[in-house]
């Protein structure tokens, strides 16, 4: 039996094939093929703050990048290490409270508190998550979701660290430009750094664990030790976001443990494209402004927000970045079969 029909065929663009390996430097066209998207990304990150008209818009950009950091951390842990992490709120809270209390109690400057909160907070988060690292499946996700609730309740009940009022009057950054370019610089560094890391030997071990943890064990590698390292990296990113935010607001409080910080980054990663690292940034750049625009709808805001998300998941489940990357690298045409 012969059935006739048409099928879409995808082929790599000649340019993509030519720009692989050492041939990339053969000519400007090939080099630009590789450089242009990266250059565009960096330029966009540098220029966007400059064109923002008001302090409100500048704040929005800061928030956007905070969510982007959390989304990148989620993307790294979920799609390169295989640990589904809902711990955005945990990292934010731990980072925020460490930086906040160091600043309020010891009077340390923001430069120091952010560094201590990033490195120390990540260590605390990693120790908290250590017991569930040898487990597979849903356990890690649940534990990361429960910790922020637990820590929030402890602060509320014992009234330590400012209790429900939080700690106001923290030192802030000298100017809005420092606000903006600090977080943008860190995000850019992380994007290119993580992209490199996942292609290094240690990154290949991470991806191996995601693909098949038993095979990694059979290679004589202690997967718990590597998962610990990956969780440290991811929670350091989140703790930085928390510490940065507390100095942006000059305040740290219980809302740092809010579930928003766990859920919105996931939505951003899905919209932007999982497993691309830069996709989560794109996703945050859509979702965060969108949720601000939807404020006009008042009470129906969440309804529209959810609808847009559902439409995205139904019609573009791969995410925008995966879609763009495919269009950039391949062309499609119909062939007879």
């Amino acid at each position, binding site marked *: 039996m012969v059935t006739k029909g048409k099928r879409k065929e995808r082929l790599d663009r000649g340019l993509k094939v030519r720009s692989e390996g050492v041939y990339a430097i053969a000519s400007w066209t090939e080099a630009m093929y590789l450089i242009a998207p990266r250059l565009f990304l960096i330029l966009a990150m540098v220029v966007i703050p400059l064109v923002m008209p008001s302090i409100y818009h500048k704040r929005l950009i800061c928030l956007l990048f905070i969510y982007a950091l959390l989304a990148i951390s989620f993307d790294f842990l979920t799609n390169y290490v295989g640990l589904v992490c809902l711990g955005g709120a945990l990292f934010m809270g731990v980072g925020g409270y460490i930086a906040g209390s160091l600043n309020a109690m010891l009077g340390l400057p923001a430069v120091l508190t952010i560094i201590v909160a990033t490195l120390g907070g990540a260590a605390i988060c990693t120790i908290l998550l250590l017991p569930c690292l040898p487990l597979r499946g849903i356990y890690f996700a649940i534990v990361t979701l429960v910790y922020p609730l637990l820590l929030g309740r402890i602060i509320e009940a014992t009234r330590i660290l400012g209790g429900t009022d939080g700690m106001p009057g923290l030192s802030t950054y000298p100017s809005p430009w420092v606000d903006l370019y600090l977080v943008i610089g860190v995000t850019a560094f992380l994007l290119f750094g993580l992209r490199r890391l996942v292609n290094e030997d240690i990154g290949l071990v991470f991806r*191996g664990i995601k693909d098949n943890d038993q095979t990694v064990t059979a290679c*004589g590698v202690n997967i718990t030790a590597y998962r610990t390292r990956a969780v440290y990296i991811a929670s350091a990113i989140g703790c930085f976001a928390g510490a940065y935010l507390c100095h942006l607001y000059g305040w740290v409080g219980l809302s740092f443990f809010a579930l928003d910080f766990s859920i919105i980054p996931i939505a951003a990663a899905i919209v932007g494209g999982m497993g691309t690292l830069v996709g989560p940034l794109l996703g945050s750049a859509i979702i965060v402004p969108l949720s601000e625009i939807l404020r006009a709808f008042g009470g129906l805001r969440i309804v529209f927000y959810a609808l847009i998300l559902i439409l995205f998941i139904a019609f573009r489940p791969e995410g925008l970045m995966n879609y763009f990357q495919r269009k950039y690298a391949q062309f499609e045409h119909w062939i007879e079969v």
Partner: protein
Amino acid sequence: MNEEVLLRVRGLFKSFGGVTAVANVSFDLRKGETLGIIGPNGSGKTTLVNLITRFVKQDLGEVFFKGKKISHLKAYKIAEMGIVRTFQIMRPFYTLPAFKNLIVPLYSPRVRKIGGGKLGDRDAVAIDILEEIGFERDAYVPYKMASSLPLGYLKRLELARCLALRPEVIICDEIFSGLSMAEIATMVPLMERLQMEGKTIIMIEHRLRELFRIVDHVVVLNFGAKIAEGLPEEVIEHEEVKKAYLGKKGLK
């Protein structure tokens, strides 16, 4: 035989719920020897491998490697000591190219220790190992994604991963199963070469004809228990073995 006993298995026992998967299995494996483990489906062969490599924890029994007890260690420690296994259901890293699959073993603590901390060009080493084991470099097979490789190459990739770890004992869990006769014909010389190099090998196999060409001695399992052990030609004549494979009626 006075050769050194490399692996000594004593009284391994494991039951899952009410089912006894492995019952008091003991055997010795000498350096440079090739042991075949055979038995009907569900006789506990793979569980035995899982117990030795500690992917499953035994209820009773002990395993000694070079005279040292290893049956309380973690699975990755066993592999680090040089007892490495393939999986019956292949478990490559599907999202990586074939040669990148070997970076994980080449980067493992065992290989780094043997290599004296020297890093070297791991990609090149990986491609060399793959070419040796039948991945045609000229056809760019080592560069293909593991997810797009056919079964025969995946079986080879499992073996390549073991070899990359510079093993002392290789445990092959049904690496011939699912392969065509032609593919097996190219795998057998590969195993024979490993034997020539003095590697100690345990092979689990259903294909008895190919297996008996390779192995020095055979352990037969049925319902988890060892029912026979000895040279291939002895084992095949054993009454219990015939009964296990052919049933009581088959004997008449």
